[in-house]
């Protein structure tokens, strides 16, 4: 919100006493204090990215635990592990968690952390809104989970079909928690989407044209557009359901003449773009990982970009393939069946282009690469079962069976989760300065790979043998027993592999520093130190190429073969490890780089939202309190300058995309010019020194 920051730098009317005693207490604006408090008020996209990731992984453990309980119940016919009521809560929360609280935030985390680094920016477009998004997501998730302690979690499945989700059939508060919780996280996604889109479009370094952006940035951008347009649709659905449940409206009350298919349409108009929101960034991740470890550029970059955009577009025209058995009429069924099939075309382009990238490369199978190739191979399986679904008449045999469950776990786990793990192993050294152990990582990968296939492979079979999903139990004699047992064993293998990963993370702190560019990376994030400084780059990069960093490191000989340059310059001060092989540091004064200051408002506003929601369920007083926090917080955020004029301008500064005013701007610009000039000088002299050393 731009109602802001015209406050002139503080000047005392009295003119004396330059040093004002800083008042104590929470009401002052936070400064960049170290320790845990800095995490609460940070607006640094990197810290926020890390928090997203950590939170999402915690939710993954929760969602996984729920899955394990589900599998325990289904291990044998007539399972007695769980009550049906509990079972229903578990699969609902499992699906909701995995989709909304694991993969979406995980990918938001990657996007947050990486987009500015990859496009050469100092931060995202609206750093404080970024923090806001994170907190909203976190509190939304906690709100949703609090339902377990407040009378039972939602229990009508992750798409909560009306009228089962209406008050008449789900009288408890479970569904209310679901409705309100998703509205809250929806706000987070929407704000995040606006923020990241503006970042991608507006914050690129000089020369970083759209067609020089790394594929991850592209795919994240497409996904954010999908979010931007899909979130309001589910918001409508959730609002209608909420008014039905809380205020007696009639949107899904069949007795009043309502049509439950309205819910299905609204949900899936959101739901299908949503699945591409879940997969596209993962595609982006592997599109950056595979070239790095094949040591050659991505095959057909423009096609990759375009197919991503095409998937994004086509994803809007297929939603009713989730309703082939709902009775939408043959014309609709035929139309949606057709449109669904053809989404395989742009996806196929991606698969083949990845194979083209592998082709005649020099593949090193790091764990990141294993997961990336794992994605390519496993997602294909899920995609192919998707195409089988798209054959509408036969989908009436497949829908709501374990065949669908197999399909979406292959695309979600074999696709998104594999992509996420690939990204985790790939960027870990960038984020924390040291690698995860490759050795343990390989154990992790193979265990997970085996467990995954053992869990979800047999689901294809039981699905076609007629086992419906969402059944808390099944009788003997259906021919499903063996497969279900195998699936359960497989799921515990996955759990084991997850523990291996946790172990890897825990002990990774002892690993040696990995250096700024441990994988010989291609994109700009590798050109700065690991972990990057708060301001990302000491020198703002100017981009001349796709894969800019690679081009800065490699030249070509006459035959077109790349040869490593003698010298190249990192974009910020790096560590010893990175300086071998011709790497140089820029010599610049970074003290004049100003980043936005931390702020309390994001977390205050975000806390208000669950309060409002609890209030709607229990007492309006809470809502009033929450409302005051939200409205006050929003205005407070608006009135607060994004750069604290009272904070010392020593270690961080303003670059939040637009200066506070022309005056300050000039200084910013000056600083940059000076900085760059100095950097260049340093390069020159450094070069000489370097060659001297070598000689």
């Amino acid at each position, binding site marked *: 919100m731009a109602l802001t920051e015209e406050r002139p730098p503080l000047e005392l009317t009295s003119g004396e006493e330059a040093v*004002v005693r800083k008042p104590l207490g929470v009401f002052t604006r936070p400064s960049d204090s170290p320790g845990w408090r800095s995490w609460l008020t940070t607006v640094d996209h990197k810290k926020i990215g890390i928090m997203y990731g950590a939170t999402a992984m915690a939710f993954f453990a929760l969602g996984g635990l729920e899955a394990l309980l589900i599998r325990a119940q289904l291990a044998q016919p007539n399972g007695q592990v769980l009550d049906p009521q509990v079972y229903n809560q578990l699969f609902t929360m499992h699906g909701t968690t995995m989709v909304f609280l694991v993969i979406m935030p995980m990918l938001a985390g990657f996007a947050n952390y990486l987009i500015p680094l990859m496009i050469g920016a100092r931060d995202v477009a609206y750093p404080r809104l970024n923090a806001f998004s994170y907190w909203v997501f976190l509190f939304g998730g906690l709100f949703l989970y609090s339902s377990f302690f407040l009378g039972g979690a939602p229990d009508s499945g992750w798409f909560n079909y009306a009228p089962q989700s209406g008050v008449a059939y789900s009288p408890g508060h479970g569904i209310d928690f679901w409705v309100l919780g998703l509205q809250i996280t929806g*706000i987070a996604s929407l704000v995040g989407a606006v923020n990241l889109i503006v970042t991608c479009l507006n914050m690129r370094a000089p020369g970083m044209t759209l067609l020089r952006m790394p594929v991850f940035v592209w795919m994240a951008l497409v996904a954010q557009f999908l979010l931007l347009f899909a979130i309001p649709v589910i918001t409508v659905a959730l609002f209608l359901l909420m008014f039905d449940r809380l205020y007696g409206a009639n949107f899904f009350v069949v007795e009043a003449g309502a049509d439950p298919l309205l819910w299905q349409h609204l949900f899936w108009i959101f739901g299908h773009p949503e699945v591409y929101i879940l997969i596209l960034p993962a595609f982006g991740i592997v599109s950056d990982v595979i070239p790095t470890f094949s040591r050659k550029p991505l095959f057909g970059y423009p096609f990759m970009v375009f197919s991503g955009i095409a998937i994004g577009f086509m994803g809007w025209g297929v939603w009713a393939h989730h309703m082939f058995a709902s009775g939408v009429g043959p014309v609709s069924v035929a139309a949606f069946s057709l449109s669904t099939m053809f989404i395989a075309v742009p996806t196929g382009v991606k698969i083949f282009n990845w194979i083209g990238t592998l082709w005649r490369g020099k593949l090193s199978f790091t764990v990141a690469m294993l997961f990336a190739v794992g994605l390519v191979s496993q997602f294909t399986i899920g995609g192919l079962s998707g195409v089988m679904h798209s054959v509408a008449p036969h989908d009436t045999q497949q829908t709501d069976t374990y065949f669908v469950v197999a399909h979406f776990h292959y695309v979600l786990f074999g696709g998104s989760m594999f992509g996420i793990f690939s990204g985790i192993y790939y960027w870990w050294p960038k984020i924390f300065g040291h690698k995860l152990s490759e050795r343990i990582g390989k154990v992790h990968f193979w265990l997970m790979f085996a467990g995954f296939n053992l869990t979800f492979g047999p689901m294809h079979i039981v699905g076609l043998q007629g086992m419906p999903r969402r059944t808390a139990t099944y009788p003997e004699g259906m021919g499903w027993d063996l497969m279900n047992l195998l699936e359960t064993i497989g799921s515990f293998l996955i759990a084991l592999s997850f523990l291996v990963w946790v172990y890897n993370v825990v002990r990774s702190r002892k690993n040696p520093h990995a250096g700024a560019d441990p994988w010989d990376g291609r994109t700009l994030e590798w050109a700065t130190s690991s972990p990057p400084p708060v301001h990302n780059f000491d020198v703002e990069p100017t981009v001349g190429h796709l894969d800019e960093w690679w081009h800065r490191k490699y030249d070509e000989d006459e035959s077109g073969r790349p040869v490593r340059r003698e010298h190249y310059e990192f974009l910020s001060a790096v560590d010893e490890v990175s300086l071998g092989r011709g790497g140089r540091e820029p010599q610049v004064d970074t003290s004049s780089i100003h980043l936005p200051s931390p702020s309390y408002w994001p977390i205050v506003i975000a806390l208000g*939202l669950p309060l409002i929601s609890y209030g709607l369920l229990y007492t309006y007083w809470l809502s009033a309190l*929450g*409302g005051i926090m939200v*409205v006050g*917080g929003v205005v407070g955020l*608006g009135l607060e300058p994004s750069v604290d004029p009272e904070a010392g301008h020593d270690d961080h500064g303003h670059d939040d995309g637009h200066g506070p005013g022309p005056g300050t701007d000039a200084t910013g610009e000056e600083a940059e010019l000076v900085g760059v000039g100095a950097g260049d000088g340093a390069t020159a002299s450094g070069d000489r020194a370097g060659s001297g050393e070598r000689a």
Partner: protein
Amino acid sequence: MVNTGSRFWFGVVALGVIGALAYLLASGGEPYGTLVLAFTAVAGLILGVTSITLRDGDVALAADGAPSTAAERRPVATRFAAAWPATAALGAAVCAVGLATGGALLYVGFAILGITLVEWMVQSWAERSTADATVNQRLRNRIMYPVEIPALSLIGIAVAVLAFSRILLALPKAGSTVVAIVVASVILGVGVLLSSRPRVSSSLLAVLVVLGAVGLLGGGIVAAVAGEREFEEHAEEGHAEEGPEEGSGSGPGAEAPEGTGHADEAPAPAQGQGGG
């Protein structure tokens, strides 16, 4: 110079007067209680005036004439702060009346008390924060503006909307359309007038504003008292479940749409925020 102490006593006066009036009305003319309350008010008045003439406890007075140092300079905000005792008293009064009459007034009283409490606390915290009054003022503003600005605007909008809609409801159907046209034209007309005549005197402006406000509020009150026009029920079938609309005579519109608005408000501002 109206100082802190006197303000408190004037608060008591207000309490007494209002209490007396309310008691009179509520009890249907019972004299003793009314007299007690009225005399409380008189006593408060005397004490307040005394307090002013004796100027006790006035820091500014004590500092008068002394060289003004940063530490001693009278905090700018105090001008404002001194109103809080009075509002506290008012709140208490309203509460008392509310207790006596039973009903919504009690909550209004609580609200006033609550607001006073918060404002006063923040105010005094800010005043003791630093030696510099301007800084202190800023500190206060930083915390309170985010709440005050929207709250005040909201209240303003709500009052205007309420008043105007009462007027519309009181008039016959065609009449409300005409009035709506007239009001809108007047607003637009005044806008045009003001912008085409850059030299409209500020007193004329003030007159206009006051006239408008008085007209709106007065009209609203009159209309509310006069009650709504007759509406004919359009119900075709038997009314299944329409209980909630009854009960609330004073609310804006009926219960149900209000409920909608209420629910909307929660996430909507945040969405608005997302864009800007």
